[in-house]
Structures are given as structure tokens and as C-alpha cells.
């Protein structure tokens, strides 16, 4: 497994991904820096974080997870890489797991950049309260966790489709309804694609522990959809003809 991960790293090392990762944090940074705030003190940090989370989590984060998945499978789709990779003495399930781990690692780097962007923007504005690392960190971690089901589904789509844009089309189809779902009190907690946003925007009321989403959402929606997508992806990948 460690070797498979190392091989994913080698494939990514000099790829275009490093150019793409800062795009969303940079945009969120500008938004956090320039947006107008209503409050001061610790509440101001909360507002800055909410602005950053809206810019980043609404569409960018879910769509980027799809781009990561498609990019990681692109190396294999081009020039018969799947055959080569699976001819090695590795279990297909391990290959699949390594790909999923690589997607989530990229998402983790993205979320760390987001933390830096939000903290940087807040400091640049000269907010008087100290940086609330706990709140920012929990928001980024929650957003990351909520990406798990999306990553699993996108990996399934990316292994199934040869073309780069087709799995992204799947992603877009599910992510665009966020624009309506995010405003709905009844449906938002149940829709997996809007969870990265909900998990990132700081909430006052309902939320489990330090998370911004409730325990039911955390377990049932994020955990449940992750399991469903992961199992169907694994079954498909292990059984399909290369």
C-alpha cells in the first residue's frame, strides 16, 4: 500500500496539479480580505471564515475533488496504464484504495491552504482578536471529511469513463443543485454534495461537538453515502475487464 501511494506521488510530482491547488484559496483570500464586515472582535473572524467557506465550499471544493479524481485516473487511461498497473503483483482493491487516498491527500493540502488563506486575510485586515485556529481548523477538517463520499463517487466515475470531462459532468450534475439545496432547511442536511459547504460555514446552533453539522448528518449522510459509493466503486473496479 505504501508503495502504491509512493507511485501515485511520483505520477503527481511534476504534474499540473500544483498550479491548480492555489486557485481556490487565492480567490477565497481576496474575498475574505475585501468583503465588508458587520461585527468586530471574535465575531469578525467568524464572518471572515463564513465568507471564505462560501466562496470555497459552495461549488469549488466539490468540483475540485472531481478534478483530482479525474486527474489521478488520467495517467492510467492514457496509454494503457491500467493494464500495466494491474499486471503488477498488487491487489486491485489496494490500487483503488491508493487512488482514493491520493485524492483525499490532495484535498487535505487544499484545505490546509484554505486555512492559511483565511488566517492570512484576517491578519491582513488587522482583526484585533487572535487567530481562532481551532475554529478554522475544525471548519477545514469538517469540509475535508465531507468530501469523502464525493471522492469515492468521483473515483468510480473517473475509472468508468475514459474521457476527462465525463466524470466531471457527473459531478456538476450533482453539485449545481447546491444552489437551491443550500437554502433549504429541510433538504440541506440530507444532500451529500452540499455537506462540504455546511461543514465549513460556522454555525451557532445545531452541530455535533466542534463540527458544524449534526451527528445524524455526519454519520448517516456523509458516512452512509461514503460507504455506498466506496463499495459500489470497489465492486465495479475489481470485477471489470481492464
Amino acid at each position: 500500500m505504501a508503495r502504491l501511494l509512493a507511485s501515485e506521488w511520483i505520477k503527481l510530482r511534476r504534474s499540473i496539479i500544483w498550479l491548480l491547488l492555489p486557485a481556490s484559496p487565492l480567490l477565497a483570500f481576496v474575498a475574505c480580505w475585501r468583503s465588508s464586515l458587520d461585527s468586530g472582535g471574535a465575531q469578525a473572524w467568524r464572518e471572515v471564515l463564513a465568507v471564505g467557506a462560501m466562496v470555497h465550499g459552495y461549488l469549488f471544493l466539490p468540483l475540485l475533488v472531481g478534478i483530482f479524481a479525474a486527474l489521478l485516473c488520467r495517467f492510467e487511461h492514457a496509454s494503457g496504464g491500467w493494464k500495466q498497473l494491474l499486471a503488477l503483483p498488487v491487489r486491485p482493491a489496494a490500487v483503488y484504495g491508493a487512488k482514493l487516498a491520493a485524492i483525499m491527500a490532495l484535498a487535505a493540502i487544499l484545505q490546509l491552504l484554505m486555512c492559511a488563506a483565511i488566517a492570512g486575510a484576517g491578519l491582513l485586515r488587522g482583526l484585533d482578536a487572535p487567530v481562532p485556529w481551532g475554529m478554522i481548523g475544525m471548519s477545514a477538517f469538517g469540509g475535508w471529511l465531507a468530501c469523502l463520499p464525493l471522492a469515492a463517487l468521483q473515483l468510480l466515475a473517473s475509472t468508468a469513463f475514459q474521457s476527462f470531462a465525463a466524470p466531471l459532468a457527473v459531478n456538476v450534475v450533482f453539485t449545481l443543485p447546491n444552489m437551491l439545496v443550500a437554502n433549504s432547511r429541510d433538504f440541506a442536511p440530507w444532500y451529500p454534495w452540499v455537506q462540504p459547504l455546511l461543514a465549513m460555514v460556522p454555525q451557532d446552533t445545531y452541530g455535533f461537538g466542534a463540527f458544524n453539522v449534526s451527528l445524524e448528518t455526519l454519520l448517516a449522510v456523509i458516512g452512509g453515502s461514503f460507504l455506498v459509493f466506496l463499495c459500489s466503486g470497489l465492486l465495479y473496479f475489481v470485477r471489470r475487464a481492464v
Partner: protein
Amino acid sequence: MIGRMLSVELLKIRRKLLWMLAALGPVGVIGLQAVNYGLRYDYLMKLYGDSPWEGLLRQVGSLMLPALFIGLALVASMSAGIEHQAGAWKQLLALPVTRLQVFGGKVMLSLLLLLSSCTLLLLLTLGMGLLLGFDPQVPWAEIVRQSYLPYLAALPFIALQSWLSIVMANQALPLTVGTLGLVLSMFSVLMPAWMPWGWPDRAVRSADALQAAGSGLALGVLVLLIGYAHFARKDVS
């Protein structure tokens, strides 16, 4: 000649997902609006009072723009991807056609697909309004305007995405640029008027809709020329 290039391109996408995608955009937008109206019909009807058509157009427009922004990136990437995937650029350019025709054919394909999406949206919007039993007095001018002006205003982005998708083998970059465009367009109300991300939005609702569409058309042609100049000089691998 360009007509023949286009028919070749259309042949290549027969039975591909691309057509489905072009249809899925408008069907998805209207489908979501159907759910939206189904769930909160009374609220929406009260909100827009005596001009239900205008309300419907407003609701449709708010979903149509993001769908257009990301859809154009996907369509451009998929139509160029046919060639990238098969490694067919070399072969295509070895045929007795000019680079202008090759580039033009790809761009025309994207333009045609998106135009059919806009037309389908027009028909579906009309159908939904009539099904909901809105005033039989259909505001034709507004529906046609909302369906096609954003398309013209988005032309710079269609041109940019086509250009990037054609010259880059790795589609991750064009699609990230497309996603960036989508996110920027959502915050375009905060931008000064000269920035093109806000043009499609202005083409939907503001008084200077025609101006936004006109600027889109002009900038789109300019970006296409730059893109072609790049493609014409590029070494194809």
C-alpha cells in the same frame, strides 16, 4: 468547407455523451425549477404577485447562468478531448485542411451544442410556464432575450475554454479555469462592469442587456482570434 468540417465534427460525436450533456443542462435546470415550484408554489407565486412569467424567468435565470458557465467548459473540453484521447490531432492536421478549418470546426461544434441547449431551455421554460397555467399572454420577447443574450455575453468564455481545451493535452487546467470562471461569475455583482464574468448576468436582467451581449460578442471574437493565432503556430504532438 467549414460546413463540411462541422458535419465531420457532428459525425464524431454521434452516440457520444456530448449530446446528452447538452440536453442535460436545460433539462436539469427546468427539472430543478419544477421541484422548486412544486415544493413552494404558494410562496413563489406570492413573491412574484401579478407577474408570474417574470418570476419564472428570474428563477430559471439564476440556475441557467451557472449551468451555462460550467457547461461551456465541459462541452469545449469534451469536443477537444475526442482528438486528445485518440491522439488524432496529427492525423487531423495531416489532412488537406487548413488549421483555421480545424480550429473553426471545433469552435463551431461547441457553439452549436450550446446554442441548441439555449433553444431547448427556451422551449422547456415555455412549457413549464404554460403547464403551471400562467397567463396565456406569453412574454415572447423576454423569453427569447433571456435564452440567447447570455449565450452571446458568455462568448468570451466559450472562446477561452475552446482555445485552452484544444491546445492543452491535459484537460485538468482548462476545467479548473472553467470552475474558477463559474465561481467568479457567482460573485460578479461585486465586480466592476468592465469585467466579463458579470456580462451574462447583466444580459439577463439589467437595462443594458444588449450592451453586455454586444461586448461579449466583440470580446469573444477577439479571444477566438488570439486562440487561433496560438493554435496556428503551435507544434502539435
